[in-house]
């Protein structure tokens, strides 16, 4: 039939028409253009770059500008809680280095937990990626899943949270920009939250600037550093890092002599090992002035109480770390002046720029 048309419309014209049709179709914009998010460059402090190995960024959740922005918005989003009254930031407040100021935090139902909220910074340098006081969360994404549905925390239900976000005028497009799909699910939510949390970096304390030659330490701070680094005195460096490990934590698990009888098994409840009972993750010593109270159960209200514990309050137990020296004498027996100097040094690790960083506050 086609071959009968040449007299009216020569076959070469048909071929041209067909060619232009193909070209036209291929040049047309697809209806659903896939958005490629923009890679996010982590602002690594010079000291971290000089002293530490690279931060841990999962290959299946690379940082992107859109993902981080979405994570920040979700971090402050009360739609993530059951009754829309709490967000992650309710207990992890930027102006307090991402903790609250209570011993235990209350959830939406007014129920209190049994652990002190952990501060959030420099999380991408936790190389073993075991999070929470007891190490039960393997990876930041996994950690972010937990409080949203925990009945004594935000007490949300994933189907309802996803419904709320889908019904929101902006979230579907924000998810699409971040992950290339408007589909919202729990995995995408925690991926965005984890991306934001990895950008919370504290590396501009007075002591950081001292190491860079910009400021001097006071005499008390210098004495405190010497006590911190002295194996016969504070001996803090074995667990809490040093000027060469500016995280100021080893991110490992230790029993630091809080209790002779365990009421909270810590890592032991996670691994089931008797040898892990009473062990908790070493917290960073950065930003201590903003993160009281202290220890996994917030039992110490002041830094003075904390230092006094290591000096004379150690409790023996089967799993106490051998690095807790002189446990039979109660601790390392620092003088009042030594304790004061040690605290002066610890406060030099405060990072006021971190807690004042407007980028980490709710800009939405």
């Amino acid at each position, binding site marked *: 039939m086609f071959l009968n048309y040449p007299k009216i419309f020569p076959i070469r014209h048909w071929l041209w028409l067909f060619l232009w049709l193909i070209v036209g179709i291929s040049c047309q914009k697809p209806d659903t253009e896939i958005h490629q998010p923009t890679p996010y460059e982590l602002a690594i402090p010079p000291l971290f770059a000089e*002293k*530490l*190995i690279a931060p841990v960024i999962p290959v299946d959740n690379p940082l992107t500008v859109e993902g981080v922005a979405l994570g920040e918005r979700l971090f402050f989003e009360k739609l993530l809680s059951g009754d829309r009254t709490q967000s992650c930031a309710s207990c992890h407040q930027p102006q307090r280095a991402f903790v609250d100021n209570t011993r235990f935090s209350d959830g939406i139902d007014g129920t209190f937990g049994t652990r002190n909220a952990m501060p959030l910074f420099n999380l991408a*340098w936790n*190389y073993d990626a075991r999070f929470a006081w007891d190490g039960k969360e393997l990876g930041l994404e996994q950690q972010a899943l937990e409080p949203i549905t925990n009945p004594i925390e935000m007490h949300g239900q994933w189907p309802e949270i996803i419904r709320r976000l889908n019904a929101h005028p902006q979230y579907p497009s924000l998810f699409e920009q971040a992950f290339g799909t408007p589909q919202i699910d729990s995995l995408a939510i925690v991926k965005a939250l984890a991306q934001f949390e990895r950008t919370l970096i504290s590396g501009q304390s007075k002591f950081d600037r001292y190491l860079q030659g910009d400021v001097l330490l006071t005499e008390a701070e210098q004495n405190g550093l*010497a006590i911190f*680094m*002295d*194996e*016969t005195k504070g*001996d803090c*460096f*074995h*667990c809490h*890092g*040093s*000027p*060469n*490990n500016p*995280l100021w934590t*080893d991110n490992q698990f230790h029993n630091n002599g809080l209790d002779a009888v365990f009421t909270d098994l810590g890592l032991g409840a996670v691994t089931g090992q008797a*040898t892990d009972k009473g062990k908790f993750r070493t917290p960073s010593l950065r930003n201590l002035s903003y993160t009281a109270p202290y220890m996994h159960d917030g039992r110490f209200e002041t830094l003075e109480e904390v230092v006094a514990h290591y000096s004379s309050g150690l409790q*023996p137990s089967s*799993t*106490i*770390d*051998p*690095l*807790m*020296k*002189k*446990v*039979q004498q109660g601790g390392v027996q620092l003088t009042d002046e030594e304790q004061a100097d040690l605290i002066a040094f610890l406060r030099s690790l405060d990072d006021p720029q971190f807690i004042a960083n407007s980028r980490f506050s709710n800009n939405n």
Partner: protein
Amino acid sequence: MKHIALLLLSFFVWTSCSKDKLTTTLTLRLSHSCNDRAVMASDLEQTQYLINEEFLVEFTRLRYLLTDLQLETNDGQAIELSSYHLIDLSDPSTLVIVLPQTLETGTYPHLRFRLGFVSADNSDGTYNDLNAASWNVPMQLGGGYHFMQLDGKFGTDFENINAPFNFHMIRAVDASDPENLILEDTSVAVDLGVVTIEKDRDVPINMKIEAWFKDPVSWDFRHWNTALMPNFQAQKVMYQNAQNVFELSKNLPD
């Protein structure tokens, strides 16, 4: 004619075989023992050992730094294998060292390494992975890095194994005058002697932990237990006792 062809074939086969020496990569496998019993990660804080027929000890942590791994060939050439490895008994991935070089199979007269950095390499804060592992030595002790951390508890009867010890080896330093530190390179040169490298066969290296405490100096835990890093004499005794700590391993009972 047939015989000549056979002869030629045999010649080619012989010459081709003689040229193709077998090669392989080398894998070192670290093990640990105490009193001829294997010490595994699961023994930490669990198993007690009798040291010097007097002290009952249990171990909490064992980490150490192997450096300057090298093989010596029959003609005296040194083959540098790798620069350093941080070994952690509780981390199985560190107990197997797969070296990148392709080596000829056969017998080598010396497999050598050191425990800890020699002073020239023991510069403060320069190894980022070791910094991240909090392996540093304070500057008031000369800086650099630990050689070994063996932590645990000791006692003299089974009911009271509760006194801590921190057997931490570093470059020995006399810090009696803080303004004038006297540093002594106590990194330990280890020569395991003849080693045979075969295809698909690891070279097992064992640390005899009890050797740290007995030969030539019998270690008294009551006298020396914690805060040993600034203890110049204790560091020198560690160095003395370290000389026979490593061996090419034998099969240990579980």
